[in-house]
């Protein structure tokens, strides 16, 4: 029941919220907060009871917290289509589940200051939260697809109604972009169903677990692993497109700057923290294990595009003057590491990729929260409208420094471990050695834009025409922002949201073993599956 509960708790919150009259804003917020806290508690329960030695991936008996119920079985023409409600956790998903719970809670906290249509906001937010969690837990492809699609509609409205000036354009761009990928995924799902048998029941199945085992493919079927089966390559690319649009990988990243910049802070937090990870997770869980030989053929290209994302994203970030847009492009750049790590095909690289997903999933919300802080106060995000903020907002400057260092890959913070593993993994394999070296450029470039941003906004003197005023005498100066009545530096709520994220970032940076223990067995298994295909291909 645990998995069903952790997934549908937000749905219950949404339904309850529908019944609360829209004037009682505080009640609405509390209901969502309770649901999010509940999710975190369940995530901790899962973590504590998780047995790291079971690899899962392609064997249902090695998954944990498995829940299975027959969902529907329909006869279409000659044959039967049936899907099950199948949920389970293994090393690939456990870190993501924990991350989702944490980020969803932080998102609720960040949503506290939303005043417009609070009821609708939280109903949509909870719907989205439910489907995000469901995506990571679903092991039946049909179920996965439904959760995947259900994230889109609330997101459209959340960006489109509560977003910034250009929100209509950003919302529809996000929706259509992601939808194009999703509909191609649908075709792949249909084809896979017809080609795979569940070893337990002997019938066609949507189970992603069964699909990961090449022996479950019906020989002679459309997607059977045979010589020169072009359809497999087509299906691979259909799924690949769907997932890399979400990652996002250059050149399919252009929806991200618009969506992130226009979305309100809590939504940027969730978008960057969790939704982007759906892409990486999809590649690892679905795309690569099901079509390992196609992956092997294109692994170098995937690594190439990963490096392109790293470098191109970083260059774009350097060019930005808007703080939030810079952070958005830095997301593109950092998700490139995920692709590079996976394309290394060894467990070192892949664990780096997963660590990067987890670490970025914490750092990115931090960055967006921090952006939100300054935007709420100054109503601008232009970096040249500040200068000298460190004097007046020391706590804020401290957190920003931490987040920037994490993003850069400073040792003792989680970003370092992740990026180091990715480079080590990619370097170890001959074909990606050069790419790995080029990828390190990304660290250099991150330093460039992050440190420049810090310098522009925090150090030095207050710039002329800055968005804030300083009063008082030398030594006793007192800053204030126009239109902002609250505390200049971070207030209690904001610190409460940032501190846990920062803490985990530091802990993992120093002692990554707990996370690595959780993910290694499954990643090893995935690496085995992928390498087995390479051996077959090379014979």
């Amino acid at each position, binding site marked *: 029941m645990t998995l069903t509960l952790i997934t549908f708790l937000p749905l219950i919150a949404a339904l309850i919220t529908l019944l609360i009259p829209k004037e009682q804003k505080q009640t609405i917020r509390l209901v969502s907060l309770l649901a999010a806290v509940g999710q975190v508690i369940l995530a901790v329960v899962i973590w504590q009871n998780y047995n790291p030695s079971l690899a899962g991936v392609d064997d249902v008996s090695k998954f944990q917290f498995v829940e299975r119920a027959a969902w*529907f*079985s*329909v*006869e*279409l*023409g*000659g*044959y039967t*289509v049936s899907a099950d409600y199948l949920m389970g956790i293994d090393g690939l998903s456990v870190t993501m589940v924990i991350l989702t719970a944490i980020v969803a809670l932080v998102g609720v906290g960040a949503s506290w200051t939303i005043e417009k249509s609070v009821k609708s906001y939280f109903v949509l937010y909870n719907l989205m939260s439910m489907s995000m969690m469901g995506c990571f837990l679903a092991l039946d492809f049909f179920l996965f*697809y*439904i959760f995947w*699609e*259900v994230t*889109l*509609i609330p997101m*459209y*409205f959340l960006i*489109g*109604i509560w977003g910034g000036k250009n*929100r*209509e354009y950003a*919302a*529809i761009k996000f*929706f*259509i972009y992601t*939808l*194009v990928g*999703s*509909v*191609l995924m*649908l*075709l792949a799902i*249909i*084809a896979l169903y*017809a080609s795979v048998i569940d070893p337990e029941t002997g019938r066609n199945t949507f189970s992603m677990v069964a699909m990961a085992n090449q022996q479950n493919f019906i020989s002679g079927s*459309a997607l059977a692993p045979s010589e020169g089966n072009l359809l497999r390559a087509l299906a691979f690319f259909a799924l690949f497109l769907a997932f890399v649009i979400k990652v996002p990988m250059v050149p399919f990243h252009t929806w991200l700057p618009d969506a992130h910049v226009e979305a309100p802070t809590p939504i940027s937090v969730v978008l960057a923290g969790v939704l982007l990870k759906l892409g990486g997770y999809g590649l690892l869980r679905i795309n690569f294990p099901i079509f390992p030989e196609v992956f092997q053929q294109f692994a170098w290209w995937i690594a190439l595009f990963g490096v392109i994302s790293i470098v191109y994203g970083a260059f774009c970030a350097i060019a930005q003057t808007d703080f939030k847009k810079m952070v958005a492009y830095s997301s593109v750049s950092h998700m490139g590491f995920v692709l590079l790590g996976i394309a290394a095909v060894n467990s070192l690289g892949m664990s780096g990729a997963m660590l990067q997903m987890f670490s970025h999933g914490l750092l990115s919300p931090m960055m967006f929260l921090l952006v939100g802080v300054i935007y709420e106060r100054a109503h601008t995000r232009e970096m040249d409208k500040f200068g000298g903020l460190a004097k007046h907002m020391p706590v804020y400057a401290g957190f920003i420094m931490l987040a920037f260092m994490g993003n850069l890959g400073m040792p003792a913070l989680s970003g370092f471990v992740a990026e180091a593993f990715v480079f080590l993994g990619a370097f170890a394999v001959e074909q990606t050695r050069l790419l790995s070296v080029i990828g390190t450029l990304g660290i250099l470039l991150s330093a460039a834009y992050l440190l420049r941003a810090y310098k522009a906004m925090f150090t030095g003197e207050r710039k002329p025409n800055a968005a804030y005023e300083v009063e008082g005498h030398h030594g006793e100066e007192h800053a204030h922002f126009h239109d902002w009545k609250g505390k200049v530096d971070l207030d209690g709520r904001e610190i409460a949201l940032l501190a846990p994220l920062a803490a985990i970032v530091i802990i993992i940076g120093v002692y990554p073993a707990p996370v690595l223990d959780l993910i290694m067995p499954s990643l090893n298994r995935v690496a085995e599956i992928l390498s087995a295909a390479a051996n077959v291909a090379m014979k």
Partner: protein
Amino acid sequence: MPNNLPEIIEQVKLSLGAFVPEISLSALFLLVITLDMVLNEKRVVIPMVSLVGFVITGFFTWQQLDMPNQEYFLRMHVVDPFAVFFKFLFLGAGALAVLITMDSEELGEKNVANIGEYYAVLIAMVLGMFLMASASDMLMMFLALELVSISSYILTGYLKHQIKSSEASLKYIIYGAVSSGLMVYGMSLIYGLTGQTNIYEIAKFISANEVDEVTLTLAALLVMGGFGYKIGAVPFHFWSPDVYEGAPTPVTAFLSVGSKAAGFAMLIRFFKVAIPAEPTGELAFDWVNFFALIALVSMLLGNFAAIWQSNVKRMLAYSSIAHAGYLLLGVLVADDLGTQAVMFYLAAYTVMTVGAFYVVILIANKIGSDDVNDYRGLGKRMPLTAAALTVFLVSLTGLPPTVGFIGKYMIFTALLGKGTVFLTLAIIGVLTSAVSLYYYFKIPLNMYLRESEDGAETPMESSAFANALAAFLMILTIGFGLFFTPLANFAKNSVIMLVMN
């Protein structure tokens, strides 16, 4: 066919037993006309009587499920599960049409003096659709098609004082008359080639004898002209946008659902039965590739033209052209899976399209406009109505968890695994679905993301009954999206068409 009179009369008498639903509809028709002449207070009684009549007819139709598949009336009329499925669909659509007419101000007391005839013609149209689904002879197909078409012309032009309505009706009848002219010409050629008008006999003749291929192709294309016009596929679609925009919206809703479904029923029956595979295994007329072409063009044109529309009804017209394309994809996969997918999709399409048009009616009642830009801010002012419309639009796009998604899923499942051409069609189908998101979502965009221009925020909700009906359709849309097994099984069991040996 017997040649002497006593035997013919015997057969007709026997057939009457199989004709009960149609007789019941005819009786309802006469009853409504009489009530129209007799009563003064017609606005509530006549619709209620129609609804009761539909329910009774539904009961008789349900009884037909147990009957053996057979031809009646001198081999003109067929009773089989395929026909019964469609009859239920037509009754559902008709009942919904009656309900939404009651709520429409366009056809309300201020604008239309005598509404009784409207309901009578509506009933006649349903009767015509029944006949279309059961026709097994070219003559019957022609007559049934004309009954439905002529009724449609009348209903389209019902708002005599509005020029748009009369103009739409004129355009409709001109296109319709030309299309039926093409169709009967094609039928005459087929008759000339085979000497038969019964579709089973035609099939027998074509399989047994050498038939001039060119003429047969020409004839089939001409006949397709008539069918294509009814389902609104390219290049026979030109009447659609004007008629959808000009007709009173309840009529538009009924046309877009009922006559499309009837057209498909007839089309599937005709092409599956009458044009069989030749002894060499190839189709006498390669209608599969022909349909593929039409489907392709319909999906492309329908989806792309809809992007430029600002009138909601016109946009829904182009979108229904696109949906005709998706349905044709299911038709051209000639096996059971394809037919089942088409039938399921038509049932799903009924619910979501009638729902969408109904909300358009409710909104037009309040703001008096069908232009999408006037929908601004309605999310706040008519929350339930706007939410229902959003659900219907999500379903039309084909997103889970709605029934529209399941319908598209079934059609694409039918397409895959049958060859490269079909795969290409499937890919184009899914991509155009993604494109359709853009124009469908212009409506929620305006309703929710934009504020109304005069800043008005007063709530404008419709009556409780209207909300209940919209909510009911919305629940069906999502409910069937999650629990679609009963409907899918019903469709599967109904694929059984009468087959001649």
